[in-house]
């Protein structure tokens, strides 16, 4: 890597030019604008410019009753819509003290884990496409398509599920969904060998990912990085394990981590997490308890005054809802902690010194969704 420190600022200012990677660019995973200051092909400074897909979710929250805000979380991080929906319902249930039946908790875990697998497919295969391998991306879509069909069977929509309701879920899972998930898991297990050997062992892929965009644990701590990006740097932090919520304490699963903290480590963590999610789904399907899927809840909830913070593990990191309620049906303030927001900012620390091609790789390996950053 070109050692930036040797070039003093005087020479830098002459030889440097600015290149706009985005907002309309093939590998920015949404409308993201990276303003790069390049010296030849080496990045001297990077400044992500965000706000292109800002819809004011937090302002909307202050004008709607709690039920009307249900469709919004799925539109913040559209790749883990089920997980955000689950998180928002948990936040309001904690605020109002609603007890959720066990079967609903299990269904929420199953759908969240399915959604996590679908989101990790996008994250990993989009990263591979950023490096130029287009074929795995389409294979990822093929596997993800099965998950979308499964979730459509029960929730009715493919991406913006408003499946959760306060006190449980909207409707029960069908037999068709149950068998479909079993079949999907077996087919997915047989496909891991292909992904492993085509991408993970491929020498060009390894050369492009090893020692690129290394995030040290100190940087992760200072910038508040969470999720697979943090686990790639060796920290074993997963909200499902550290702060167990919903039905997660009843399942046995490990948290995969890697020590190197470079792009390859993050990729391997996400692929390993696929297997863990499958374990969780299988255990949940085996011990699915009978019973109602939704607790008796008034039509419009009115939580008591006060505030509460609920955190949950989205596919990109530790997301959270901080709700301040003033005793009426309309929330006083809802703050959404978007993991991609902090994960993205660490780019400004680790990118200088890399090549232009590496920027695309690092940005892909951090796996952010842009609407979640802009909210």
């Amino acid at each position, binding site marked *: 890597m070109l050692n930036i420190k040797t070039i003093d600022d005087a020479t830098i200012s002459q030889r440097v030019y600015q290149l706009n990677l985005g907002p309309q660019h093939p590998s920015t995973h949404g409308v993201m604008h990276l303003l790069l200051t390049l010296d030849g092909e080496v990045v001297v400074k990077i400044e992500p410019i965000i706000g292109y897909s800002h819809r*004011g979710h937090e*302002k909307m929250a202050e004008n709607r009753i709690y039920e009307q805000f249900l469709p919004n979380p799925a539109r913040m991080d559209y790749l883990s819509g089920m997980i955000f929906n689950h998180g928002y319902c948990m936040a309001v249930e904690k605020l109002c003290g609603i007890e959720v039946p066990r079967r609903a908790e299990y269904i929420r875990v199953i759908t969240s884990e399915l959604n996590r697998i679908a989101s990790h497919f996008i994250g990993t295969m989009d990263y591979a496409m950023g490096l130029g391998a287009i074929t795995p991306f389409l294979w990822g879509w093929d596997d993800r398509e099965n998950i979308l069909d499964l979730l459509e069977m029960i929730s009715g929509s493919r991406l913006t599920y408003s499946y959760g309701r306060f006190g449980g879920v909207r409707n029960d899972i069908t037999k068709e969904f149950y068998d479909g998930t079993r079949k999907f898991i077996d087919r997915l297990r047989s496909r891991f060998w292909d992904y492993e050997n085509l991408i993970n062992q491929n020498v060009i892929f390894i050369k492009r990912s090893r020692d690129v965009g290394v995030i040290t644990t100190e940087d992760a701590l200072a910038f508040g990085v969470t999720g697979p990006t943090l686990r790639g740097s060796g920290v074993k932090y997963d909200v499902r394990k*550290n702060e167990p919520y919903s039905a997660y304490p009843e399942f046995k699963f490990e948290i995969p981590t890697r020590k190197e903290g470079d792009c390859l480590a993050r990729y391997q963590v996400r692929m390993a997490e696929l297997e863990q999610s499958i374990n969780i789904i299988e255990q949940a399907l085996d011990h699915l308890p009978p019973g109602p899927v939704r607790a008796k809840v008034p039509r419009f909830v009115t939580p008591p005054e006060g505030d509460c913070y609920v955190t949950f593990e989205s596919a990109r990191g530790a997301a959270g809802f*901080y709700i301040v309620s003033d005793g009426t049906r309309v929330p006083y303030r809802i703050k959404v*902690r978007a993991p991609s927001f*902090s994960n993205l900012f660490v780019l400004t620390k680790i990118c200088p010194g890399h090549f232009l091609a590496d920027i695309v790789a690092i940005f892909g390996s951090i796996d952010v969704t842009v609407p979640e950053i*802009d909210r």
Partner: protein
Amino acid sequence: MLTAGQKKLLVELKSSLAESVPEGQISESDYAAKGYHLDVRLQKGGVRRVAQIMLDRRFILETVTAVDFIDSFELVYLYSTYYQQQVRLLVRIRIAKDAQPYSVSAIYPGAIWLEREVYDFFGIRFQEHPDLKRIINPDEADYFPLLKNFGKTKFTDQIDDILC
């Protein structure tokens, strides 16, 4: 329920916070209902002192946010840790509408963007912030959207009765 490790850590935290921020009220809150273990209410200041303690104990700064209570703002800092026992800390400080609190970006570089977002939506100017400018709204915007008197809200009494 709180594990032994969490109790020990909470006691440690309370003692170190008490002697560094004497005028702050530190109260333990019920994690199951609130989501955080310790609720620190600061009076005059000390945000940076708390941040320094938190960094020394390897806490991460999860979010910096503000809540507009019509006559004053409430700045909320959320710290949580993943190195030792899992503990979450909520630090709040009531500041006047035109107050300029100190920025913690010197201690937590991640706070640069978090504070820029608070400025962008509430108009709270942080002192000693490296480059305090708008982050999400267009740069030439002259409004601060999340204020209660911006747009149609309960408090601008233009809201139709459909809601509540």
